[in-house]
């Protein structure tokens, strides 16, 4: 099996320059999870249906299970780990905790990434815009209402701060 090819991945991940010699030809999610240990990136379906693996590539929400890892070379990737930590939460992370928009938590990182992208390009989204922004993120627990309210609340927090 020594036909494995290697590549040097040079890119910015969560604000840090990364240079990693690793196996090529894999998906961006594999590189982030297996090589960088960013386990907040979740794989729910592996075929672009569920949105759990959503990350930001140059600020745009992409599905890391459908993105070849090589596409990220020279670009900037942000995962849930780059959004906020327990001591310094992003307003959307605060809001989703307060509103009870988290149950099993598996969709949560991807859901937050889609919400963060929305709020960055549209600080005052209406309900329809919020629903459209998270329409690619499936959740089997919450019924979505509390997640939608979290994004509304985050928009308020961000405009008042």
């Amino acid at each position, binding site marked *: *099996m*020594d036909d494995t090819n290697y590549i040097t991945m040079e890119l910015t991940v969560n604000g840090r320059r990364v240079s990693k010699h690793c*196996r090529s030809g894999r998906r961006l999610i594999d590189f982030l*999870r297996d090589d960088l*240990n*960013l*386990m*907040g*990136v*979740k*794989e*729910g*379906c*592996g*075929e672009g*249906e*569920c949105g*759990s693996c959503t990350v930001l590539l140059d600020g745009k929400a992409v599905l890391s299970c459908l993105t070849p890892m090589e596409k990220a070379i020279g670009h900037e990737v942000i*995962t*849930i*780990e780059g*959004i*906020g*930590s*327990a001591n310094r*939460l992003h307003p959307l*992370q*605060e809001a*989703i*905790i*307060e509103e*009870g928009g*988290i*149950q*099993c*938590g*598996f*969709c*949560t*990182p991807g859901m*937050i990434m889609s919400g963060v992208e929305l709020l960055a390009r549209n600080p005052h989204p209406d309900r329809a815009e919020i629903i459209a922004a998270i329409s690619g993120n*499936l*959740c*089997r*627990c919450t019924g979505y209402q509390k997640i939608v309210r979290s994004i509304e609340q985050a928009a308020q927090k961000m405009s008042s701060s």
Partner: protein
Amino acid sequence: MSEFQKTISQAVRISQSTGPVGQSVVREDAVVKATGRAVYAADITRPDMLYGKVLLSTEAHALIKNIDTSAAKNIPGVHAVLTARDIPGENVYGIAVADQQVLAEKKVRFFGEPVALVAAETPEIAEAALKEIKVAYEPLEGVFNPIDALKEGAPKVHEAGNLLLHTRVRKGDYRIGFEQADVIVENLFRTHGQDHSPLEPESGVAWFDGDGILNIYSSSQYIFRDRKQVGRVLNIPINRIHSVNTTVGGGFGRKDDVTVEILVSLLAWATQKPVKLVYTRHESMLTQTHRHPTIVRIRSGATASGKLTALEAVVYGDTGAYASLGIYVIKKMALHIGGPYYYPHYKADSFSVYTNNPIAGAFRGFGILQAATVHEVQMDELARRLGMDPIEFRLQNCLREGLTFSTGQVMDQACGIAATLEELREYVKRHGLQFKKHPEHQEVER
């Protein structure tokens, strides 16, 4: 302290002083989940860890004539290829009835049944090895409908026959009840199967410690039962199995029975290395349990004044190739097919039946959803035929303290259906809502 942290610490204080009931309390694990730090089974890695894959049957019902694993074993990076023959203990499991083979031995009973296991140094090598395992099948006629499966001469899913359990519930005399009825509604229902689709597919990591303790970290709803089932197959006592429940990314009943625990433990035992096994969504849908598809024939009778008199129902539940929790799910349907309503005369039969379909097991509601579909349509249709308001008709017939359930159990506590209906009636008024008129039902085959 930020406003947010104040909210959280306040919430914790409230719950400590008065208990969480009646309080809005922040989930204990919400912060780790919101920051992507919660550890699910697939997030665990161990030094020198291998990756497991499962070869799933490509036949719904077939004899296994031969399994050739030699080519797969010769691939560099492959550490183990296992079939039923390699199992050190009993090749059997099942949460309620031990009727399921861990790896198919002489025949496969559904499309997606595990046939062989691989452990390799990368997921790609494991995948390549699966393709090199050659299984020779001799296809058998299958049966894919519970009514067909009960017919004489139907293909046998299991040697002992296709009937897993027949549940009879009798109260009063249904013939008398139907004689008293002025209106009788009779229908045939079919409810479909459903996949739980927890966002996290079934996953686990297993390894043996230096002192021979088997560690299993998995996404499970019931680690204590898992431990028992693993021990039987690996032939090790349960006090040498350390089962740990990781954060669970949704279960809904899907992870009530064993999922990957036995398979990943077998690979850890065979290789003496840590092994991770994570199902893809595709594999998960094929090989794991689902909601029971059901077929229900039902008659319900009421007097012209709107009093229920009798119910007669037959339920066929398609439990698929193995029982899982299908024995209890379909048993419950016989009890609950009348819903939370009082019938003086009640006759229900339910049949939990093996077929060559995917396995059905526990799923939120546990048979009650299928029953509710049936009894609520029956109640609406009776109300419509009687010219009564659907809520009033339900209030007139709902279970109350002192009345008996289908089994004869006297309702003596926590019987909240009347209060719920009254609240619903108020809600409908308050919001100026109206019930949608049902279109006339089309005649269906009887």
